[in-house]
Each structure stands twice: as structure tokens, then as C-alpha cells.
């Protein structure tokens, strides 16, 4: 036995603090877990979506390809149309996301006459090379995202967005 006897007052303080702590935790834990659920949900791997772009028609020049898919946003399901810039690089097909890595505007190919053959973001003048690599000295801090690409029946199939593998 230690010589520090716990007084009646201390004992009650400890007990009340402990019980109070349990009650507070019992209230807070479900609410906090409830609130942070989106951060802990594991994302299912995206399926490939078929586009109307024939692989045979692709050239080295990026073209804008719109593709639609069913997007499940919690309780709300809708048909969403997204865009990719698609071109051939040697034998490989490259599909880049048009979302600027600066602040999320939409980039266009070859739309800035002063800087031909680059992706250009009209919002703050961000520029990217054809590979999606950001041009140093312009606002974006990283290269354009890339879509996973596959081919089916001669058409381009686009998968989920991944970090750029070429820039």
C-alpha cells in the first residue's frame, strides 16, 4: 500500500471525472465518426467508360473527347459528362484531364496564340506542355492528371484519374 491515502473528496473527484469523461466520449464518438466518414470511406475502383473516340482516328494532336457516365453521389445518381484531351504518343494513347492544377479551371489545347502547342488555362495563364507537364513560372504547381486508358472494339476507354506519369 502507498502512504498516499485517497481522501473521500479525491475519490469522488476521480469517479465523477471518469464517469463524466465516459459520458462525453459516448456522446462525441458517434458524432465525430459520423462527420469524418467521407474521409474513411474506401473508393471503389472506377470502371472504364467507353467514349465515342476511335483509336484509329487519333493523331499526335490532342483532341477533346467528351464522355458520359453514371455518377453516384451518395443518395443522388446522375448522368455526368466529363472531358479529356486525348492523343497518340507513339503507340500509346494518352488522355489528360482538362482540370487545371492551379485552381481547377478548364484548360484548352493550343488556345493561346503566344504559346502554341501547349495546354492553356484562361483563368490565370497556367500553361502545360503536351505531356501535361506544367511550364515553370506559370501558376500550376503540378502536371495535369491523366486518365487510365484502354481500348475496346477500336474505341478509347477511359478509367479513373491518376497522377501524371509522363510530366
Amino acid at each position, binding site marked *: 500500500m502507498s502512504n498516499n491515502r485517497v481522501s473521500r473528496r479525491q475519490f469522488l473527484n476521480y469517479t465523477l471525472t471518469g464517469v463524466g469523461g465516459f459520458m462525453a466520449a459516448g456522446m462525441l464518438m458517434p458524432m465525430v465518426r459520423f462527420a*469524418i466518414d*467521407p*474521409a474513411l470511406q474506401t*473508393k471503389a475502383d472506377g470502371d472504364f467508360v467507353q467514349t465515342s473516340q476511335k483509336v484509329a482516328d487519333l493523331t499526335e494532336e490532342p483532341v477533346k473527347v467528351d464522355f458520359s457516365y453514371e*455518377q453516384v*453521389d*451518395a*443518395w*443522388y445518381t446522375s448522368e455526368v459528362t466529363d472531358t479529356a484531351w486525348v492523343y497518340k504518343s507513339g503507340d500509346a494513347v494518352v488522355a489528360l484531364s482538362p482540370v487545371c492544377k492551379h*485552381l481547377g479551371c478548364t484548360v484548352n489545347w493550343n488556345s493561346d496564340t503566344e504559346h502554341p502547342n501547349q495546354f492553356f488555362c484562361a483563368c490565370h495563364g497556367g500553361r502545360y506542355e503536351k505531356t501535361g507537364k506544367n511550364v515553370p513560372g506559370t501558376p500550376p504547381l503540378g502536371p495535369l492528371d491523366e486518365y487510365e486508358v484502354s481500348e475496346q472494339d477500336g474505341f478509347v476507354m477511359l478509367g479513373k484519374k491518376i497522377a501524371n506519369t509522363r510530366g
Partner: protein
Amino acid sequence: MLNKIYDWVDERLDITPIWRDIADHEVPEHVNPAHHFSAFVYCFGGLTFFITVIQILSGMFLTMYYVPDVENAWKSVYYLQNEVAFGEIVRGMHHWGASLVIVMMFLHTLRVFFTGSYKKPRELNWIVGVLIFCVMLGLGFTGYLLPWDMKALFATKVGIEIAASVPFIGELIKVLLAGDATIIGAQTLTRFFAIHVFFLPAALFALLAAHFIMIRRQGISGPL
């Protein structure tokens, strides 16, 4: 009649001292525009609070019609603005007040800064004031999305990308704000609504209470 009711309550609850504590306090000459007109700069804090009260009231009434749902949010705003009597006024109060409260808060901050009122012993009140400023900006950011029109959506996309650029925890902040790793949609709208209408106002009330208790305890800073 009113006096009699007051006396009846006062006799039982002794409310006069409470009332005195709240309302009866000294207004020194140097902050009274009736003495020196230039003292109007001392009104900006009170004006900020006045507009905040308008924001709270108009916001409460807006929720009578507003629905935080992707299908109906825009339509409910359109309806309350164009079909409901005085809807344009009530939404206008909330819309313009939102900008005005930032302006007034900024002027109040400038006044406190240039009169040196943040100095000892009032440092804590400055800190609480900065927190109020952050909460107000948060209210502005979350409220901007709620009409769910194009401007709101893209402003929020950009805003969330800015939050995502925070080192290390940026991605986490983004998901917790948007409610989804990739989509700014149904869950973003309900989250922003909850934050705008419940969480931030609760924080704001607590901070405002601290702000006012401190200013009452310490009094207004002396003349320059």
C-alpha cells in the same frame, strides 16, 4: 401597464441589477460622436454586431423556404426570391449584409489597430476578434455555395482546391469539406448548409460573448 409588469417581475427576480450590468455603462467622451464627430470610428464594432443580428434574423427566415438539396436548392432560392412576398428583400438583406459585415469588421479592425487598442491588457480580445474574423470568412465561404448556381459551384470548387493545397493535410481537409473525394455535390451542399447554419453560428455566438464580456470587463481603451 408595462411598468407594472416590470415591477411584478422585478419584485420576484430582482432583475434590475442584471439589466444595469448589461445596459448601464459609461460612454467616455472620446468615443462619443456627440462630443467629437471623429469618434464615429468607434461605431464600427457596434455596426458589425448590428449587421450580424440582421444576418442571423434574415438567415433564420430564409430557412423557412430553402432546401439544401441538389435537386431543389436552386429552385427553392428562385421561388423564395421571386414568388414569396418580400422574398427579394429578405434574400437581399442576407446577400448584401454578408458583404457589409466583412466591410464593417475590416473598418473595426483598422480602428482597433490605429488606436493601439489591441495592446496590453487587451491582447486576448484581439485574438478572439481574429477568430471571429475567421468564423465570418467561413460563414461567407459556406453560404456562397447554398444558392447552388454556377457561380456558387465554381467558386466552391476553386475554394476547396485552395484548401486542398495546404501541405500534408490538404487532401483530408478537402474530403471533409466536400464530403466526397472527387465530387462537389449532394454531400458538399448538405455539409456546407450544416456548417453555415449550425456549426459556425454556434462558434460565432461563443466568440461574440467572449468578445463582449472582455470589453465590458476592461472598458474601452483610453483616448489617443
